[in-house]
């Protein structure tokens, strides 16, 4: 009984955070701000759902911790896609404000391009 309650709480919590992530995708107005929405769905949303799965498996007597592995792979891979999307946004100057340059003489890695690579890629077909 107590397990059912815990499991339900985890399920509802996960669904709420996934929903908030989706609302964020629709509501936020700039591409960089929109990037913040899926981090909620992929951390708390999926995390709570997996927690519910673990609780259910233990309540039924056949304990399962494979969900921990799903979580770990998700946590390792999710930042990489977010990182690449923000790099693309910066590269296409799709941001409301240009990012401030880093202190010193350097530049951000996205803008560190070879002279030969600058130009319109469309012209080469």
């Amino acid at each position, binding site marked *: 009984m107590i397990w059912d309650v815990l499991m339900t709480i985890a399920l509802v919590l996960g669904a709420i955070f996934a929903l908030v992530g989706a609302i964020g995708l629709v509501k*936020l107005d700039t591409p960089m701000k929109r990037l913040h929405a899926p981090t*909620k769905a992929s951390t708390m949303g999926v995390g709570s759902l997996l927690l519910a799965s673990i609780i259910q498996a233990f309540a039924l007597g056949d304990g399962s911790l494979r969900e921990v592995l799903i979580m770990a792979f998700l946590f390792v891979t999710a930042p990489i896609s*977010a990182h690449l999307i923000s790099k693309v946004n910066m590269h296409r100057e799709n941001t409301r404000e240009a990012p401030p340059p880093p202190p010193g003489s350097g530049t951000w890695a996205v803008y560190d391009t070879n002279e030969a690579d600058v130009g319109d890629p469309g012209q080469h077909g």
Partner: protein
Amino acid sequence: MLGLGKRLLPHPALSLLLAVVWCLLTNSLTVGTLVMAVILGLVVPALTAPYWPHRPSTPKLFRLTSYIILVIWDIVVANARVAFIVLFRSNASMRSEWLVIPLELKTPEAITILAGTITLTPGTVSADLADDGRCLLVHALDSADPAADVRDIKERYERRLKEIFE
């Protein structure tokens, strides 16, 4: 003796990780699974050692575990905060800012984990690294005081990662 140990276990942390992941994948803890886990933990790092010419220093596992717990707690707290911002604040009233974080970390592994941590905690996304690797560019959804947020990230995550990896 030390040489033999190094050849048998070129990456102790990787061996441990492989063994644990194998046990989780098979989802059971029997003698057979454990034996297979130990074999994998011994063979895979030895076979792939040539591809890792620079042996990364083994992280301090206890500190790493407490760091992971801290990050999970922060993710839960930040999730609630950002959910509130997304649902109840208008786009115009969000003070989204670029944060430039000067890095003291030198090892690529530590910088990767710091960038990953920043992205996983809702409200901040790490966007780019300076070409010389000395600064991290972070986008914050809502930042009242950018300087304080930079200090907070450095104090909370970077200092701990420096202790773990360097």
